[in-house]
């Protein structure tokens, strides 16, 4: 007992979990998820309530036979694509490299 490799599996996961490197990764991943969730969930609930209770606002004409409601819908579709794109890029450039280092470390030390 005493060396890393003889710790129980559960304790080794706890050790990795408490490491500074993992805590940084966790904070970055969860911060992004939390902000994105607040933005897209908030946007969607706002859309639902505006459409249901302020139809006059949605009906307001915009040049080109459009109205505010259709523009907001186009923005919603665009938002799905933009948030997806931003997250995929953030994950690829920031989260995945950090995760790979930790993973290689964990699985390497276990052998």
């Amino acid at each position, binding site marked *: 007992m005493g060396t890393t490799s003889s710790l*129980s*599996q*559960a*304790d*080794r*996961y*706890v050790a*990795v*979990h*408490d490491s500074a490197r*993992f805590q940084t*990764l*966790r904070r970055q*991943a*969860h911060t992004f*998820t939390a902000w*994105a*969730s607040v933005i*897209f969930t908030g946007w*969607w609930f706002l*859309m*639902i*309530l505006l*459409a*249901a*209770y302020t*139809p006059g606002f*949605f*009906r307001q004409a915009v040049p*080109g*036979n*459009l*109205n505010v*409601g*259709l523009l907001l*819908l186009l923005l*919603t*579709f665009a938002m*799905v*694509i933009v*948030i*997806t*794109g931003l*997250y*995929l890029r953030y*994950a*690829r450039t920031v*989260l*995945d490299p950090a*995760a*790979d280092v*930790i*993973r290689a470390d*964990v*699985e390497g030390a*276990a*052998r």
Partner: protein
Amino acid sequence: MNNGFAAPAIAAAISIGLVAVLLGMAVTARRTQHSPDDFYLAGRRIGPGQNALALFAGFVLFTTIFTMTGHVSLNGLDAILFSAAFAMSWLIALFFFAGPLRNIRGTTIADVFALRADPRTARVASIVVTLLLFLTYSIVMMEGGGIVARMLFGIGSETGRSIMVAGMGVLAIVIVLVGGMLGTTRVLATKGVLIIGILAVLTVIALVKYRFNLVQLLGDAQAKAVPHPSGSDLLAPGREFNGPAGPIVHISKLFVAFVGHAALPYMFMRYFTATSGPDARRSAGWAGILTTGFYMCVAFLGLAAVALLGGQNIGMAPPLRDTTLPILADHLGGPWMAGLLGAVALIIVVGMLATLLMSAVTSVTRDGSALRQVAPEPADELRAARRNTVVIGAATVLLGTVLLQVNVHVLLPVTISFAGAAVLPAVVYSLFWKRFNTAGLRWSVFGGLAVTAILFLFSGLMSGTPIAILPNADFHLVDFDPALASVPIAFLLGYLGTLSSRERNDAGFAQLQVRALTGAVLPAVRNPDVATAPATGATRAGRTPSAL
């Protein structure tokens, strides 16, 4: 139903060719089926491109494309809003399901729950949820198959329709039996390509007809739409919001589609087949982008149908609105286009039935043997999985064919409500809440199911409305779809249940987070007492919380 727009002979000819191709795909996938993991997970070798196509295709039901187009033609902005709810639901799939679930390397959702709760409870929860949602969803898919048979293949008799629907079911069983997850995935990817192809072609033809003048098209759609009793214009909100029971009905639909869709087992189990966590994330992201483009085409085609043909000449009442897309296809591309659309509709139904069956077989076989605490030889498990494919598949086809006469379409929002209430809270708590435990899992999953079932029983989906299962009875108390209330209640139940028990397993939480975020898996330790520690209550409760 007058279906002069359909081209049954062409549809049948194209279908026979397509079915031959799909069966060929299943047969070539057969060679790779050496172990249970090959069967359930395609050996976790599905790349992000193919998986994105398969996820997108798994998302597109008969109603997603046919009913939604007619819905847009009838209800305009309110219907497009509904389709946006589904597009938004992919963000939940992207952030909370795809990467984390694949990184944990599960086969069923029980492998995730078991890190936070008693394994037995986790397995029972997984099997109950997966099987229930498989059943209700499959029945709706087969109802869609019946509509395809009547509307696009011109089969008038009830017997003929039953035979055709049963045939689609048998085809799905054969695809799963022979091709396993790999065959099913290839069939779905093909379905995805077909859907994108036909929608893109129709969109381009309609755009050319209007000389790319979208402003004119919007104006014509507004002008030629059938007036609505509520007085709302096509492009303004109100056609759905101003129903007899007020805006709450449509609000609940917009909520249900958004929160529930990502939590359907047959959808998220596809992430387990990805080559890696990042690839699962990429496939969910691209599936979401494909879905968004798909719905923009559907919205455009729905409005184009009104603008080109006039609201009077396309499906006006809800049961007839499914015909809008075939009528438009016939108008834009003639009988060959209508026939191709019929064949694609058939593949849409078969692909859904196959991927749903795959989820049920995986859970019943894998969770089932874990529950009985047996570790079968791989060859025996593979044989059991194939036997379960036949048994579950045949029983479902029989049930779905019998229920063709019943108004089962309302089971669609009910199924998504079940998923939102029973799965989403348990997954979110598992991933992010350190304190979550067995009691919390039990309360959120089974409480969520129970609350949803009770709300459904007393909703306008069961009785009191023309679309209800029992349209002639009326004992409904609530007007909204169940999830609007049952998802928040299930979150609350999971919270209260967790606090009601002293059990806590901080080590399990640490393991889950390390695995979910990095994909790292430590090999099992040799000492069996330590390796099986999470199963014993003393060890689970023994760890004191570390102040993080």
